[in-house]
């Protein structure tokens, strides 16, 4: 269906032409930069509302509902001539009730974690020509939504004759295309050589290396990013990095935003000490230079931790195509040579 304003006058009926005239006079709303700043300022200056009014209202509503229910279901007192109510109840045939299984949380590892931990050292150079080094079981392995592709290619490669090409185009929904391995279950190093053929900027950042969990503390399947490295645009147009700390619920940006090189292989490495208390540590390096180091932090929330490399985009109104090449991924308890 064409918009009224786009209807060619020669084919449109007189009424459509008249309607188009009206519609053309009203343009799409374009908020000004001043409005943008004004609203943002007032949102930032408005403190988060206290929870208690909502809680009080909820409690009052519940109490009201209970009272109404009690009034509605209150039995009228029996008149002297009536048979005792208990006897009437006892005369009714008992209705067999089906036994309802109790809802219990799934055991931590059952729904998803078929391969609990990775046996180190592990390497993948894609020299087999396929993704057999990343066996899949529905959780680990590969995951690629539509509009994305995983392909083992002959160029560019860092070593050997093969590398993995990951391509994703964002659309009206979230787009992921990643290869996934389980973590070690203790402390270890996770690395991969990555090649960005060109800068990738969505209007929202792209994650490319992250740790996540797929089962929460209660054993319920839930995808949650724990630590996620993303590329974003620097004011000067260069591509830089930020880290999302999903445990602390904050974004960490380095004081000096490093430039992510484009058109050459770059080594990204992470160290993860898995801990459910404040003894964990997570650190990231780019070409040997430390980017982020969170020490003395909780690094594990839930179960079944996964390490993944690839492209993860959140829905964006601005369609963007992104490509990334991966080679020589490695996991080990000591820092690989």
């Amino acid at each position, binding site marked *: 269906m064409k918009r009224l304003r786009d209807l060619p006058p020669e084919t449109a009926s007189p009424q459509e032409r008249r309607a188009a005239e009206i519609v053309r006079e009203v343009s799409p709303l374009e*908020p000004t930069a001043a*409005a943008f700043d004004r*609203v943002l300022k007032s949102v930032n200056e408005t403190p988060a509302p206290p929870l208690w009014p909502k809680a009080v209202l909820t409690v009052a509503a519940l109490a009201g509902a209970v009272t109404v229910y009690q009034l509605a279901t209150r039995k009228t007192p029996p008149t002297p001539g009536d048979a005792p109510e208990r006897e009437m109840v006892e005369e009714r045939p008992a209705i067999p009730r089906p036994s309802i299984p109790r809802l219990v949380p799934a055991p931590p590892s059952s*729904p998803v974690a078929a391969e609990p931990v990775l046996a180190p050292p592990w390497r993948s150079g894609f020299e087999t020509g396929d993704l057999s080094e990343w066996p899949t079981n*529905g959780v680990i392995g590969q995951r690629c939504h539509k509009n994305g592709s995983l392909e083992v290619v002959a160029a560019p490669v860092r070593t050997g004759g093969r590398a993995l090409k990951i391509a994703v185009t964002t659309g009206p929904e979230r787009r992921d295309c990643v290869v996934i391995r389980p973590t070690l279950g203790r402390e270890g190093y996770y690395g991969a050589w990555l090649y960005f053929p060109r800068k990738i900027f969505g209007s929202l950042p792209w994650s490319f290396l992250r740790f996540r969990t797929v089962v929460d503390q209660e054993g319920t399947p839930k995808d949650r990013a724990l630590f996620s490295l993303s590329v974003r645009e620097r004011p000067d147009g260069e591509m830089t990095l930020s880290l999302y700390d999903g445990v602390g619920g904050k974004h960490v940006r380095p004081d000096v935003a490093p430039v992510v090189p484009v058109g050459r292989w770059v080594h990204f490495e992470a160290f993860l000490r898995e801990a459910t208390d404040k003894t964990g540590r997570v650190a990231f390096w780019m070409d040997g230079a430390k980017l982020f180091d969170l020490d003395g932090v909780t690094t594990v929330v839930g179960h079944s931790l996964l390490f993944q490399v690839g492209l993860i985009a959140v829905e964006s109104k601005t369609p963007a195509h992104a490509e990334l090449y991966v080679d020589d991924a490695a996991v080990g308890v000591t820092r690989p040579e």
Partner: protein
Amino acid sequence: MMAVDALPKSAHELDFSDVYREWFRHVCRWIRALGGFGVDHEDLAQEVFLVVRRKLSAFDGRNISGWLYRITELTVRGSRRRAWAKRMVLGRRETAGGELVAQDRGPAGELQRKEARRILAEILSSMSDERRVAFMLFEIEGYSGEEIASMQGVPTATVWTRLHYARKEFLAGTAEHDRRQQAEEQEQEKAGKA
């Protein structure tokens, strides 16, 4: 075994400032489509983004436009209810908020624009909410049928059906408006001659 694709996604990685930067313009447009020309877009956009900031960490990341649209829809609905209650209590209409953008077209152009907007608002006010909003989003704000379907969480065919009927009503409305205007002009002409 449950496939990862079936698991709920987390959008914790979303930064509020990114979401604001990317979606502010769209939220303003939705507010106008949902609330009409008279609503105060800035005020409502602020309300929407306060909710967004509060709930972003719990958002599952599946359909950000749908999620934001729903918040906008509820916010606009709440504001209408408040405006209605105010009118009932105070017995007066709320003043219409200003447009975020004023077009610099000179007095004649501005008059023409105001007249077009008045006619548009008049015809749209007689439509059902669903048709009116679909019409505004498609014809005025420039969204595609697929985008509207994704935001509203309805099949694309439903959007096309709404648009089909909305356009039909709009064409009939403009014809009726022009006929009435013509009749008024003739009346005035007659009165002038008399």
